[in-house]
């Protein structure tokens, strides 16, 4: 399911040749050629890992003087199809070197209630997901982040608290590290993202 805050990048197996009335897209993996109209070509040109679906829809709406809602709907349908065909992928937050959008800054996570925690004194802790039999070892900072994934603290707030609690956390890397940790924990089912209200 595509949502409007998502940011996409083109697959590295794709080559796009733009023309005055559209574009040809070559998929190296299956040696297939796809034809795109001009609007789709414009959308592809903004699929650069920086513009969100919403931002691109807004550009398209201005360009063709159509209502934003209509542009957004068309853009999301296109991305759904491009994603299905593995032409685009959602951007990994890490690729942005720790730069977060406002939405990401306020993103909140909550712990999977079925996951058990074993705290091992100063060594950190160990998470156990009894549904999947998966174990995750946490260092003290990982444990700190885990405990703050309570559906109330946003990412920015967790990072600030982490910096307050640990003197030896390098400011430069902390953001990327926290994002990477949260992404991995979400992917493996230990954490869930709180949906926007």
């Amino acid at each position, binding site marked *: 399911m595509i949502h409007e805050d998502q940011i996409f990048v083109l697959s590295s197996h794709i080559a796009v040749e733009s023309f005055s009335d559209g574009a040809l897209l070559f998929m190296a993996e299956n040696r297939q050629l796809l034809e795109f109209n001009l609007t789709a070509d414009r959308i592809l040109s903004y699929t650069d890992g920086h513009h969100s679906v919403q931002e691109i829809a807004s550009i398209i709406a201005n360009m063709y003087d159509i209502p934003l809602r209509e542009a957004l709907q068309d853009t999301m349908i296109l991305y759904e199809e491009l994603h299905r065909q593995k032409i685009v992928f959602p951007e990994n937050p890490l690729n942005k070197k720790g730069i977060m959008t406002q939405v990401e800054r306020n993103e909140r996570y909550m712990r999977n209630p*079925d*996951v*058990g*925690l*074993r*705290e*091992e*004194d100063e*060594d950190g802790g*160990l998470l*156990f997901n*009894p*549904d999947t*039999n998966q*174990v995750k070892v946490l260092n003290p900072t990982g444990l700190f982040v885990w405990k703050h994934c309570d559906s109330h603290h946003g990412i920015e707030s967790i990072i600030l608290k982490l910096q307050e609690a640990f003197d030896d956390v390098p400011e430069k890397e902390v953001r990327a590290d926290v994002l990477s940790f949260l992404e991995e924990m979400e992917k493996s089912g230990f954490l869930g993202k709180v949906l926007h209200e």
Partner: protein
Amino acid sequence: MNKGTILSSPKQIDIAITGRCNLRCEYCFYADEMVARTDLPTQKWLNFFEELGKLGVMRVCLTGGEVFTRSDFFTLLDGIIANRMRYQILSNGTLITENILSQLSIGKRRLRMDSIQISIDGSCASIHDKSRPNSFDRAVQGLSLLKKAGYPVAVRVTINRYNLHDLENIARFLLEDMGLPSFSTNEAMPIGSGCQNAASMSLTSTERFQAMQTLDHLLKRYPGRLTAQAGPQAKCKAYQEMEDARETGIKTTRWEMGFLTACGCVFSTMAVYHDGSIVPCHMLPGVVLGNICHDSLKEIWHTHPQMKALRERRSIPMHKVQGCQTCEWNEYCNGSCPGLAHQLTGDFNRANPTDCYRKFLLEKESNDALRS
């Protein structure tokens, strides 16, 4: 002992949830005074599971008695699941019916199951029933139902004097006829009923050697499909490692040779009996550390002198262990199970006499001489 080396709580608890059983097996460790103790009521167990959940205990092994004799078994199972744990069941298999299977499939009961182990001691009723009276057909029926429904079923064969000569048939029956991926073996121990029936059940050194040879032969026919943590197959491996170490001067890395290092249980598990008694392990029924109804498991785990003593056992060199000072193998031995050592000598800081390699060699030599 450095506090840092002790986990915050046990990872696993072995729980005998009932002392009741529908069978009367010849070698059951749950005999005598054990059956006289009373089963705890449902709520006490549920409270205990809550305590385990808070401690982050990851899994429990449910045994008995026979677990399916408890009418509240599935209520207990749900208590375990609600407290974020997985579970394993040890059963005689005779009470497993279609109804039990459909109960096991409800909610997360199946998802959280590590395995369900059924005991099979013979390839046919006439052998199995000698040690586990009147149960072969029902046990095999239970096993078949579980396998057909795709449950993670395991089989344990306890080797004794009745089934020693049936091992090849048992392997064929379980691996070929039943189509199981593997099974594990053990040996009837001289504890509980096994102590009373030792003369008819317990293997002599010569018989144990025969069992080792048969199992070795079966492992060649069925590579990797017979496993063992104890009993002849495990002993054979340990004895071979001792021989190799003495010959090459290179000691195994599986344990620290020359010290009482055999058992690592006290670093990761504890056990509870059906009346709530907490023990370090079910093999140490005489070392009662407290009761789940009024003692904190965590406190016992960290501070009980007997737990500390069992952990410190690892630092005792074999050449200082009573009865082992002059043994030519003491540099390569690890003393084996402290539970059996305690049961048979009254002291867990002794070596387990039933696994003594020197004794094994001497008895085998003398029996061979008598025979020839």
